[in-house]
């Protein structure tokens, strides 16, 4: 299956892309996706912390992914 991973702010700058399309085995978790990401984009480690959103909602790292899901890397927010 393929999922979309979206990047914003410092995360976007570190990865050098707004979004990536990543192939993962069926039933992969958010955690699995993040491991893949950190291997392929070690610079992401420079993000002091981040949350993840799954299909535009904050999600836990053990959530199971399905084909077409949109995962987002959410650096510390600073709106307002």
């Amino acid at each position, binding site marked *: 299956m393929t999922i979309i991973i979206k990047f*914003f702010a410092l995360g*976007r700058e570190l990865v050098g892309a707004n979004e990536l399309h990543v192939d993962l085995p069926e039933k992969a978790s958010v955690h699995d996706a993040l491991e893949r990401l950190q291997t392929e984009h070690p610079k992401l480690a420079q993000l002091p912390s981040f949350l993840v*959103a799954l299909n535009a909602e904050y999600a836990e790292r053990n959530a199971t992914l399905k084909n077409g899901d949109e995962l987002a890397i*959410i650096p510390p*927010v*600073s*709106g*307002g």
Partner: protein
Amino acid sequence: MIDVQLSESPLDTAAIIASVQDERCGAVDVFIGTVRNQTKGKAVQRLEYEVYAPMALKVMREICAEAEERWNTIAIAAHHRYGVIETGDIAVVVSVSTPHRADAFAACQYIIDTLKERVPIWKKEFFDDGEVWVMPHA
């Protein structure tokens, strides 16, 4: 009534306030967040806001609904700007109308405090000698 918006053009505070006014209400509290010309003593030239729009709108709507549930409100509007903003410009307006004033203050403050914690919007400050993503909770 809950109205949340993201806008690349300047926010019209008067229109946002007018949109929540209602003859059942005795009170409107409005919070206006503006771009300061300095951060920790360093002159800010301008800001850039980046937003994960579909999620930001969803989270803003959730936060307003939480306020609506918790206090006696009539209408709530929360508008956030994105893109390049100059110092002195308005970045966010939250406007809440209520029958009684204590609810207006409490709901408005809850919304802006929670918005700053949860809504996926990021601010980059541009200085004379560089730029930095602001990370209040890092």
